[in-house]
């Protein structure tokens, strides 16, 4: 899955020379080094990177960690998946009185075919694509007509009024119960950020043990940094804060209710 062929134009660099010369001279070099330094090792210790798990162990680990963070998780078979996911979405919406949801414009999510059943239950769907908010009232702006928010894309404003976001992570990490989401096009960051609740659907074979493996895959897919997605998000449970007298609040800026469906 390659990203748009249009690369961003390079940006500007200011104040580099004096700054870097200073650093180099303090480190005992006449000019800033251009050669990659020798490294006897890189990254995590081998006893960690060499660990292997079976798929069942991955599923078990992910579930244990996710639920410990107050997340909910469902494991379904490939055959059950479309119906189960549609039912789950309807259940979540009913439980929390949700009438508008947003989802990634992602072939796997589309293939599950839940759009129909969800709309039938009277729930509006804002798919993350350019025309996704057509025919939908985007929602009010805090500072009214002249405000900054009013001038943002219709889609973004519509997504902001949705209370459930659905994504298909690129990878899921079992040791930390993290979802790895690479942004691009129909895989918008806002979908996993703006809503009260988050639902992630993925296949069991997308599970890896450690975040480093997700990074490895990321680098393999995009060996050239200029092609990298603008955002790689690792999401590990619900948004939280203990800033009010050490009292834990779940769900402050990001989704407070997190759900996962793992397809075996």
């Amino acid at each position: 899955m390659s990203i748009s062929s249009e690369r961003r134009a390079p940006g500007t660099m200011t104040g580099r020379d004096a700054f870097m010369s200073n650093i180099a001279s303090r480190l005992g070099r006449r000019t800033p080094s251009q050669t990659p330094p020798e490294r006897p090792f890189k990254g995590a210790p081998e006893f960690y990177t060499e660990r292997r798990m079976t798929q069942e162990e991955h599923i078990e680990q992910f579930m244990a960690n996710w639920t410990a963070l107050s997340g909910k998780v469902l494991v379904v078979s490939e055959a059950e998946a479309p119906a189960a996911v549609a039912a789950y979405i309807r259940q979540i919406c009913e439980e929390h009185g949700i009438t508008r949801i947003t989802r990634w414009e992602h072939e796997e999510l589309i293939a599950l075919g839940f759009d129909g059943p969800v709309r039938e239950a009277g729930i509006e769907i804002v798919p993350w694509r350019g025309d996704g908010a057509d025919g939908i009232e985007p929602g009010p702006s805090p500072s009214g007509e002249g405000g900054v928010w009013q001038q943002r894309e219709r889609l973004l404003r519509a997504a902001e009024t949705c209370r459930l976001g659905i994504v298909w992570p690129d990878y899921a990490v079992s040791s930390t119960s993290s979802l790895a989401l690479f942004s691009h096009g129909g895989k918008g960051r806002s979908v996993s950020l703006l809503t009260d609740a988050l639902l992630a659907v993925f296949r069991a074979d997308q599970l890896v043990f450690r975040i480093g493996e997700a990074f490895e895959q990321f680098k393999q897919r995009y060996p050239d940094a200029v092609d990298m997605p603008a955002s790689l998000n690792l999401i590990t449970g619900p948004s939280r804060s203990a800033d009010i007298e050490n009292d834990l609040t779940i769900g402050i800026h990001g989704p407070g209710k997190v759900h996962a469906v793992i397809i075996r």
Partner: protein
Amino acid sequence: MSGHGNTAVDERIGSGLKSRTKHALNDEFLRKAVAFTTDKLKNGRLQAMDTFGDWEAWRERGRAIRSHTIANLDYYLGQFADNVVQGGGNVYFCKEGKDAVRTFMDIAERNKAKLVAKGKSMVSEEIHLNQELEKKGIEAIETDLGEYILQLARETPSHLIIPAIHKNKQQIAELFTDASGEHFEPETKVLAEYARKKLRNYFLEADIGLTGCNFGVAESGSITLVSNEGNGRMVSTLPKVHVVVMGMERLVPTFEDLEVVLNLLARSATGQKLTTYTSILTGPRASGDLDGPEELHVIILDNGRSEQLGDPIFQEVLNCIRCAACLNVCPVYRHVGGHTYGSVYSGPIGAVLTPLLQQDMKEAGSLAYASSLCGACYEACPVKIPLHDMLVHLRHRKVKMKLTSLPERIAFKSYQTIFGNIKLYKLATKSAYYMQKPLVRDGMIKAGPPPLSGWTQSRFMPMLPKQSFRDKWGALQQELASRRKEGGKR
């Protein structure tokens, strides 16, 4: 009852240290809150270390990666900057805080910005950016909940990770009530809901999102932001312009290395396996993206950091990953909290970093005395910075720069003379026995003139016995000889 006001900024660091200490020690709520918070975070870390396993191996790896990066900072920073620019971001190298502030103001002006939404950034506080924005009439809102509370109270953070631990629910409710005109009960749920709605509006309306950078990844020019709340994601996704202010040392070479520091950071800071949100941002929005910033600006700040490069003792201080594990084990911090340090950085790391970055041994250098040198900080540091040794070396620097008092210098010169010569030593200790007599009550010294009064204000002291060990050695020798004759263990 705001308590701390702006004493942290108003008074000079060293000369205000004693009064801020007294103030903090008299604040019962603060002491309870600090002790509770640090215990909670420390225990979280200890548990996480246990379950993760092989913690020493991880620490050593963390140390090695960070030390390697700093020792080759010219290479990695250059690689990082090149990659940011190639990826469509703009890089500004700023030697001093005021350069960074000016750079930010230029960006704000170009964008006719009226509102800046800030993620948590210690560096932005280091350069006093908020004050400058206020002067120019640009509204800057702190979106980290703890920082938002402090902003309303017009106070400075008292802890690196949980900035407003010195505020209780009642005080927070009052702040929100004053700010909004609505009445709020001191209940967490209610207060959090208000903050959520209020800050949401700021996220949506902000012209610029400002964040720090937990780790830059040199091989790709990526910016890593971690947050539990999600505000870091908000301010780097919604506004059209994203400005990153980062300390020049906040780098790792590769994604492989990023895995190590992310694991160390989360576990050391709060005991979590990973912070809820870890965002690795590479460039502004890609074409085809329907959200994300149009512009990315990365301000790389020196502000005293390069002074530590090439220094065999202090270069390692740049390894710090800002986890605050040292704060959570420091017995001094535990009792006095963050404001006592009079600086953006508090606790053991603050006591070392502040005089070094500010290049001020006179005032800030006094922070080096705010430690019993117990070494708990070194033990807790996930990248093995020998903070306890650095404090001693800072004290040495103060002496070398002749910044210590004349009586003290004379005292230690006398110490050298007396303790360096056995005859004088024996004479001095004998006289001490006689000189103490006026002070002895019931076989103890309960009060004395300065500097002894520093001890006796809270403790008794034993009196020197007539016979020192030296005096008793003769008799002991004989006793030991007969013990040996009686043969072996009894």
